[in-house]
């Protein structure tokens, strides 16, 4: 599960380095250089093609509505309309949406990381009858598509009078099985001897969790926190199903509703999209390697 993003260089390097030893070396070198250039060109074209939607999004956000769809396409705006980025705050209650998204993401992430890592300790480091059966129940629900039980969930929330509150989303998303699973996988790699030694020294189980296991699992905690934060921030279906009042809406649902009502304000829609993606881009660039590690830990074990 080592970070993929940092280490895959060695193989290619090792065989081009060995090339001159072989009799056919000179010709192969020539083709190798040509191949490298071709590869660079190919990658650049493909890379740009993949980036086009983002480029188009940013460029359109700086245009007038009437200039977004032109034939032929103008990639660079004639005139940069930075005022779109000031006008949007009064056009839609974006500040409220951002505040709601931030609130939900932070609270849900905090609860998920806390209860997830706490429960994971019980599953990975304490032995008691029934533990493994219980864990299977956790894992099994990960396999059940959420769509298959969203209706009973909704009924429960409705009976509890929690529909159209932030609390409903917090309760639904903060106790997921995924966090428990991810943290448990990581705790299993921490040697039991460490906990055993701490027990002999008279540390309670809670002490071991707080003072030994938790500090050792920072990378996994970071992965879980980032993945949960991004998932909550981007979640559309949860707010779409549960939140009906405008003042409770998150960025995603607010943006979607703006698109639905003012579908010809192309530039403003793109401005909103850019602003909704910006926080995620920041979080992603800061914690990139934890994302990759998290995917590798939860995916390939």
């Amino acid at each position, binding site marked *: 599960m080592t970070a993929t993003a940092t280490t895959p260089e060695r193989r290619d390097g090792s065989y081009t380095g060995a090339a001159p030893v072989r009799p056919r070396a000179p010709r192969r070198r020539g083709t190798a250089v040509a191949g490298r250039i071709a590869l660079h060109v190919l990658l650049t074209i493909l890379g740009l093609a993949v980036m086009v939607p*983002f480029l188009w999004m940013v460029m359109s956000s700086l245009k007038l509505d009437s200039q977004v769809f032109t034939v*032929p396409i103008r990639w660079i705006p004639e005139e940069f309309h930075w005022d779109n980025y000031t006008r949007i705050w009064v056009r839609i209650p974006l500040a409220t949406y951002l505040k709601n998204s931030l609130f939900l993401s932070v609270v849900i992430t905090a609860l998920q990381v806390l209860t997830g890592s706490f429960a994971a300790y019980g599953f990975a480091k304490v032995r008691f*009858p029934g533990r493994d059966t219980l864990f299977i129940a956790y894992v099994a629900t990960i396999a059940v598509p959420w769509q298959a039980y969203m209706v009973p969930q909704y009924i429960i929330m409705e009976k509890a009078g929690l529909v159209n509150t932030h609390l409903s989303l917090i309760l639904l998303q903060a106790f997921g099985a995924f966090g428990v699973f991810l943290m448990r996988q990581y705790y299993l790699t921490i040697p039991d001897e460490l906990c055993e030694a701490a027990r002999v020294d008279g540390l309670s189980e809670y002490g071991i969790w707080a003072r030994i296991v938790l500090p050792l699992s920072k990378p996994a905690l970071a992965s879980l926190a980032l993945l949960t934060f991004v998932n909550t921030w981007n979640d559309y279906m949860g707010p779409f199903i549960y939140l009906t009042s405008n003042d409770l809406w998150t960025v995603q649902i607010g*943006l979607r509703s703006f698109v639905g009502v003012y579908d010809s304000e192309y530039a403003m829609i793109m401005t909103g999209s*850019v602003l909704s993606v910006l926080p995620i881009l920041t979080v992603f660039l800061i914690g990139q390697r934890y994302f990759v590690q998290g995917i590798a830990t939860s995916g390939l074990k």
Partner: protein
Amino acid sequence: MVSTTAPAASTPRARRLSRRNTLAGWSFILPNFIGFAALTLVPVVASLALAFMKWNSYSTPEWVGLDNFRRMVDNANFWTALYNTTYYAVGHVPLTLVAALGFAVLLNRKLRGVRFFRTALFFPYITSLVAVAVVWNMLFSPDAGPVNQFLRAVGVDSPPGWTTSTTWAMPALIITSVWRDMGYYMVLYLAGLQTIPGELYEAAEMDGASAWERFWHITLPSLRPTTFFVLIMLTISSFKVFDLVQVMTEGGPGRSTLVLSQLIFREGIEQGRFGYSSAIAMVLFVVVLLITVVQFRLQQRKER
């Protein structure tokens, strides 16, 4: 089941220890378990039972056996949704897999800018779905959208209407979802490529194997466990597809992109037909389960 203190379980001290462990273990799990049990475990079980009941928002639940399933089989919407979901999966799974594998192999080397490309490819996956759907909807715009302008430029006289056309809305969804998901699976493939020993390639090169032969006889077989995992994840996520469709086409035009998850939502939450929607949910669950089991079997047979 792991017993706590196997040989000495009968001594009072050991029993006390076991009880203390049980208490400690549960105390760790409980904060998460309360929420998990009430809002995941109970709904999962309830969903199974509800499929055999008639229950609307204002009536009391009543056991009706297979009635919901009979109604479902007679309902055209159900078959349309099942067909559309399968169509989406058949397009989404192989295309995403090939794109992810291709990019992983291309980017698994020492080249300037490789890290930037990896980041750029992964980013769509964590970009919010609403932004993705909104941008692609505009890119696919029939008259002046960049996609069709490009197609016209390369000589396609009457490019498709994409999300405004009943035949092309689904391909538009598939293209968008491949673009969005390939970076995630590429990361899984890059991790898989790390586990292939470099000596294998050196030996093959000594024997004169071409790049294509090396890929076909070394890379692909060595990646089999990753491919297996990717295939399962992709298939499951394809059958669960919901938000992308909801945001991009809302199932339209007409019913041309109506998928199973959407139908469950419409029947269960919008219409309040709890029992009937749970029957559809059960079909979704069984399909996902069957695909997983079949793929597991195939994988085991290959390994033998």
